[in-house]
């Protein structure tokens, strides 16, 4: 109880510090996620129809996924220095594998008859990608976005180690100053953001196929 009381007391005394950390955390996460999506989604569309390339891409994504975020951050330090930029790059790298893999699998498991019909009826490649392939892949793509969002929000807590800011700062400062209240505020906020990301993207995922999927609408 005293720990929780300490946390509430710290939050009451330092709303500005908390607000800045929270905004930094969100900015880091959203930027990293958007960059990751901007790379992974078109890459997935580009390789999905080429079986060998798709296989290699999935293997590469698996490799990326095994890299610990902290190791990526440390490796980026000599290349990009400290601060916001290397943190965002590391988060983008975290976001790529789930989006890429789910896009490739989503596109490759889309009904081949519908794809054949789309070609045969005279849709252009862009019309097919936007109007048929991506909508059919959407449920899996959104699942990939959800996984990526949760991972990025969690990994953003590590940005503090290379001066990227965010809620991780509260945890490291709390540890250094033996200020358990400050530490707890950071930890709980990180966990809450991850849960929110899970719930929000989960909702998007269900919306993506509302009506047309076999599951009761």
């Amino acid at each position, binding site marked *: 109880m005293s720990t929780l009381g300490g946390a509430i007391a710290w939050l009451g005394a330092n709303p500005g510090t908390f607000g800045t950390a929270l905004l930094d955390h969100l900015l880091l996460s959203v930027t990293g996620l958007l960059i990751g999506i901007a790379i992974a989604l078109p890459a997935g569309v580009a390789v999905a129809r080429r079986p060998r390339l798709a296989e290699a891409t999935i293997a590469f994504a698996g490799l990326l996924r095994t890299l610990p975020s902290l190791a990526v951050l440390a490796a980026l330090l000599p290349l990009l220095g400290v601060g916001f930029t290397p943190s965002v790059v590391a988060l983008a790298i975290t976001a790529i594998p789930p989006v890429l893999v789910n896009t490739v699998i989503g596109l490759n498991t889309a009904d081949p008859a519908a794809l054949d019909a789309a070609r*045969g009826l005279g849709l252009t490649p862009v019309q097919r990608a936007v109007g048929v392939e991506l909508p059919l892949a959407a449920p899996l793509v959104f699942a990939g976005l959800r996984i990526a969002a949760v991972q990025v929000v969690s990994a953003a807590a590590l940005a503090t180690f290379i001066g990227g800011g965010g809620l991780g700062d509260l945890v490291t400062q709390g540890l250094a100053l033996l200020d358990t209240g400050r530490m707890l505020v950071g930890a709980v906020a990180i966990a809450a953001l991850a849960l929110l990301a899970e719930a929000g993207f989960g909702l998007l995922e269900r919306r993506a196929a509302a009506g047309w999927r076999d599951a009761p609408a």
Partner: protein
Amino acid sequence: MITLRGLTKTYPGAAQPAVADLTLTVPEGTSCALIGPSGCGKTTTLRMVNRLVEPTSGEILLGGQDALRMDAVTLRRGIGYVIQEGGLFPHRTVAENVATVPRLLGWDAARIAARVEAALSLVGLDPGRFRDRWPHQLSGGERQRVGVARALAGDPPVLLMDEPFGAVDPVVRARLQDEVLHLLRSLRKTVLIVTHDVEEAVRLGDAVAVLRAGRLLRHAPAAEILADPGDPFVAEFLGADRALTRLGLFILADAPRRAEAAPGTPLPPGTSLRDALAAMLAAGVRALPVTDGGSVTLDDLLTFGGGPSHAA
């Protein structure tokens, strides 16, 4: 009219061409069924017509236009395409599926809505009931009908059908075949159909083209090819019961009729000769009456269906 001249497709790395030097004409307003064992090149041939497969060499003329010189996307919008299981877009309603080509052609909303209604009615689906349904809410036969409506929506002169009724049960298939046949005849469409089913080929095709290993073995009207296969492979492929299959192409109204009445249950004049023969076998009689007068005899059926020397 569809004209294929010297059409050849050799896939990269393949020793044998998938389709070799195929020449075939489907006259305006008629249908031709491409048939043969799997791997014979029938589907490749069909897919070359709308350039889903690019020919290695040869010529394709559609209504006098060189299909290989046209933009592939423009070409496809002018050709109806029906595939197995319908190939409907699962994320679009029935109306949106049917509207695909009219939308691509840039029609205005009112014209598209009217055309969707008309196309659904043509294939026997009540637009009010089906317009807003999702494909997963339809039966296999209904999906197939929507597939045909979608192919007809842009009012193309030429239709390509790839195993169009392969995924529906036999009873539904027979009804769909009859309805679509009448529909395509009344609309005067020129149709190329791929099937592996002899019954379907002779039912839907005014002419039947038998392929084997990428080569055209025989191309003739359905009744003629059944009466005289002209090639041992074609004969085997059409089956030992091809004479029966051929009888199924004609109805009592086509056959000679005796004036004298016969005992037994009368058959309607629309009965196929095959069913008439089956009725005689079942009743153990050599003649049966017809509802609009007279009778049909076993001897007449034998003469009518009795191979090349008696071909009608």
